[in-house]
Each structure stands twice: as C-alpha cells, then as structure tokens.
C-alpha cells in the first residue's frame, strides 16, 4: 500500500532513485582513469629557462605528477584564489616549495614527489646513475585485484545512501506526517504500533533494495564494476544495514516534536557516527577507550562488511561479530522506536 502511494509521488521517487546514480556517474567519470584523484603541482616559470629547469620538468612528468606551468603573475592569481595545493618557484640557484595549509594532505604528498623529482633531476644532470626507487604497488586491502575509484565509491554510496535515508528521510517523513496529523486516524483503530512500524521499515527496505539494484546495474553497465562477492551475502548485509538505520530513524523521530527539531537531533547522531566510524579518517591516534567505544558503533562494521563482499569478494566469515553488532543496534532501536512512537 505504502509502496503504491510512494510510486505515485513521481518526484520523490525520481530523486531517491536517481540521486545516488548521478553521484556515481559524476565522480566515476571525473576519476575514471587510475586510482583516485591525481596530484598536481603549479610550476612557476623561471625568468630564463636553464638546463636544470628542463631536467626538473622532465623528472616531474616521469613521476606522474600533473604539472601546470604558469607565469609568476598567473601563478600568484591562482594561489590567492586558493586553488593551488603546491607550487614550485625558482629561488636563486634552486627552488622553493609553497604549500597550501588548507590542503595539507594533498600538498604534503605532492611536496614529497617534487623533492624526489629534484633529486632525480640532479642525479641525471651530474651524469650519476639513476637513483633507485622503491617500487610502489596499489592494492585494495582485501588483496584481490585492484579496482578503480568508481568501484571503491559504489559500496560507499550504497551504504551512505542507506544511512542518510534511514536517519534523514524516514525519520523526517515520520515526524512531519505526525505533525500534519496523518497518523491520528490510525490511533483510533486496533492496529498495534509495532505492526505499523514494522510495515514502514519493510516498505523502506524494498525501496532500498530496488535502489541498490539500480546503482549496481548502472555501475556495471557504465563502469564495468562487478560485484566480486555473492549477491545473497550482499542482500543480507544491505537488509541488516537498512533495517538498523531505518529503526534508528524511527527511534529518533520519537524524540522530536517538530520536523525542525528532528533535523537537529538527527544531525547530532549522524555526524559523530560518521566521523567516529572511520569513514573519513582512522582513529589510530585516538585514546584506547574511544577506540573500543567506536568499535561498538554500527556504521563501521556495516561498511567494512559491504566493501569486503563487494570489492574483495570475501565471504561473511570474520564479519559475523560486526554484523551481529549491526543487528543488535537495529533491534534495540526498533524496540525504542515502538516505545517512543506516538500517533499524534
């Protein structure tokens, strides 16, 4: 029933289905060749082109850096717009590196490469033998075949999409329907709350599965990304994750009076979950107690299992505990949701 009503809301349907696909297409196309974003450096032209300038440029290109050669004025303008991460300028007989403190990760890596290039260039000019470099190999952590950026992105998009759907759309819709009194009429029927909520979760689950299927299909047709693991494992993980985060959304919606209030509450939960779950940075430097606590959050084990199956073709062995954590959170959240749910 819900599903039928939902299908009639064409605009909502289009965006829920199309948005992740568009994201995938967008990022996938930008970073199509090679592993992730390429490092680039701005090279300020010397007044007089000297032999060591030529050697450095050659070495930079050999090291696969994207070099952008600009005049001093052009480079200055670009720098002040904040678009430059790292810039090599002539300084007396040698060079000077200018790094953008806002883009340190990128700038730092670039600086390393530039220095390496300069060592190479000096060696070549003095006729010394080519310095030996330690060979680098790019691999995904599961030791399977290294894949491109889009295939790294896809499970992340699936997971993120599902979390945001659970926390933001589901809970928000729930609160706003309650605000508009759409549930009041149900309150005078003998329908138990838990059946109503379970129905809502199942309804959303079907939407998510369809959404995931579309995303995987597009990934396969456009970028040739294969699901490396078994589809039944994937389905199991997705179902657990969806159930868990939907229940989260419903539970939180029981704490908000208005949709504005809900926006605040869901952000309060979403951001710590996101930041602490190792999506953006690892927590190796954090205190031990924090790491232990974080290990109990549901997002990280969910994403790990999803990536392991999808990208590395791993089985579920070794993810049992993680998935159990996800399921436990889901169940607890559902109980809380039933307890807190109000019709009006």
């Amino acid at each position: 029933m819900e599903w039928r009503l939902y299908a009639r809301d064409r605009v909502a349907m289009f965006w829920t289905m199309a948005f992740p696909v568009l994201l995938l297409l967008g990022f996938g196309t930008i970073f199509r060749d090679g592993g992730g974003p390429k490092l680039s450096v701005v090279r300020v032209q010397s007044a007089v082109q000297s032999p060591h300038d030529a050697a450095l440029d050659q070495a930079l290109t050999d090291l696969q850096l994207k070099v952008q050669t600009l005049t001093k004025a052009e480079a200055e303008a670009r720098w002040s717009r904040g678009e430059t991460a790292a810039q090599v300028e002539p300084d007396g007989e040698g060079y000077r590196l200018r790094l953008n403190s806002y883009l340190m990760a990128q700038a730092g890596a670039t600086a390393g490469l530039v220095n390496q290039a300069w060592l190479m260039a000096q060696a070549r000019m003095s006729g010394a033998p080519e310095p030996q470099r330690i060979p680098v190999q790019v691999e995904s952590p599961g030791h399977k075949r290294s894949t491109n950026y889009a295939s790294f992105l896809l499970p992340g998009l699936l997971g993120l999409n599902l979390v945001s759907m659970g926390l933001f759309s589901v809970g928000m819709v729930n609160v706003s329907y309650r605000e508009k009194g759409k549930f009041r009429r149900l309150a005078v029927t003998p329908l138990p709350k838990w059946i109503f909520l379970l129905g809502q979760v199942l309804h959303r689950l079907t939407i998510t599965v369809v959404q995931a299927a579309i995303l995987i299909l597009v990934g396969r047709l456009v970028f040739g990304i294969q699901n490396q693991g078994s589809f039944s494992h994937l389905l199991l993980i997705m179902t657990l994750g969806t159930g868990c985060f939907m229940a989260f959304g419903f539970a939180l919606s029981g704490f908000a009076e208005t949709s504005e209030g809900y926006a605040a509450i869901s952000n309060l939960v979403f951001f710590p979950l996101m930041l602490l779950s190792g999506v953006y940075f690892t927590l190796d430097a954090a205190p031990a107690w924090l790491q232990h606590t974080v290990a109990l959050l549901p997002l990280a084990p969910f994403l790990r299992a999803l990536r392991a199956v999808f990208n590395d073709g791993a089985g579920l062995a070794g993810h049992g505990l993680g998935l159990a954590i996800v399921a436990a959170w889901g169940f607890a959240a559902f109980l809380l949701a039933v307890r807190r749910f109000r019709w009006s």
Partner: protein
Amino acid sequence: MPAPALRIRGLRKAFPKVVAVDGVDLEVARGEVFGLLGPNGAGKTTTLEIIEGLTSADAGSIEILGLTWEQQGQEIRSRIGVQLQSTSLFNKITPREALDLYGSYYPKRRGTQELLDLVQLEEKADAYHVTLSGGQQQRLALAMALVNDPELVFLDEPTTGLDPQARRSLWDVVRRMKGEGRTVVLTTHYMDEAEALCDRLAIMDHGKVIATGTPASLISELAIPSVVELTFEGAAPEPAAFAARLGQAVERRADLWEIPTPDPKTLLPRLLEAAEAAVVPFQQVHVRRATLEDVFLHRTGRSLRE
C-alpha cells in the same frame, strides 16, 4: 439490560492555560443519536477525544459499551467508529483504497462497495483524495468510521465548513446509521443540525454541561417560547430607550432587535404602538418559536456564534 453505550462521570482535563473539560457527566443510551452542542472552545472536541482514547483525562471515569480503556482498550477500538474533526489522509490515496486499508486493521469489516454506496461515493471511488471536494472528503471520513461495523460512532463536527446541500446529504447518512441501530455521538455548533438530527442533547459551555435533554424539552423548559424580531435596513439602533418605554427586555443583534416573550399575542399591539410613537425605522416584524439558539443565549447570556 445491556450497559449504556456511554457513561461518563466527573470528566476533567486541564491544559496549561485553560480547563477544557470541567467535570462532565454524560450518559448515552444504545441506539440514540446524542449531540454535544456548544460554541467553539466549549470543550466538545476535547471531551470526544478523551472518550476515543486519543487524549488522557486528568480525572473522571469513562465506560464505553460497558468497557473501560484501562481493561479492554483494544476491544473498544474494534467496536467504535471515529470521525475526527479533520481527517488527514495521504494525498494520493483513493476512497476505495482507504476503505480497504482501514478495514484491514479490524477483525470485523464491512464491504468497501457497500460503504461507498452508503455515502454515495461510487463515482469518486478511484479518484485521489486531494481531488475530492470538502463534502466528499467528509463523506469518506464517515464511511471510514463505519468500516468496522461499529456499535458506537463518534462524529466530530461532521458538517463544519460544508455547503447546505452537502450538509443535508451528510445528515441522511447519520440518519441511516441510526436506522441500522447504531449509537451516534456527534458534536456540532449548528443548532439546526442538533435539532434536526439529535434525539438528546447536552449543551456545553466553558468545559461544563449546562443543560441536557431532548431538543423539544430544552426549548419548552424556557419560560419564553416565542421571540418577536424587528428587522432593520442596515445596523439596528441602540434599543435601551425603547426597551424602557415598552417595559420589556430588547436585545440587539447585528440588524435586528429580539424581544423574547411568553405571550406574543398581547405583546404585538403594544409593540407596534410603541414603535410608531418612538418613530423606530424598522422594516419587518417576525414572530418565531424559540430555538436552541435562544436556549443557549438564555443560559449563557451569549450567542452560539460569538
């Protein structure tokens, strides 16, 4: 003898700023159409929502079909039908789907087609809810209240905001409910509706029941069964001087004076004489029977619509 359809004792509900229901006692017999009449804010809807289990009371006891919410909540829910003051449905649901859906929540249900016939919505059965007129939406809400074949039906202002024709057709549905042997409890602030539909009435004001009885008995209990009206073109003038000359209370409404009297026959000649002497520029004279409006006015000193 079965328990009454509804028995309420000492019901009280206070909100932070106002006491909405202040010690209400009611008893409704089976098969009766019972009306709660009163102006907006009299506490009718709050009373109804407490009975329906939507709002909790601060004090008092409620027995519905001999059952209590504490003991048999689910059974009460499956045996009553409810129409809320505003039934907010999903925009793109059709009447047929809504009846199927809500019917599926109950152990006992009436056929969707039968309900659509009853409220004359066959033609709109497959139209989206947003495209229905106000009257059609209200009729659907009424059909939804009957979906579980309830013994007791609650209707909260079923005709508010409808045009006269839509109101009549809704009244027909309520009469049919009574014909089927159901007990109906409705709220309204239209006295004509209360007179036309209800077997018995409770008049509410400021959270209290100020009178109970059949419409006829409420009117005949008034010492003044008739009202003489003088209508004016435009606003009615200040009647104080004229009232003194006549030796009778005169009340001013927007464009008329009302003079309640137990004996219009002897009042009329005196009235016309006095009006001529005072050069009162009235247009017409009407004599009418007192209505529930006058009962309310008499009991509270205020008009129902104020």
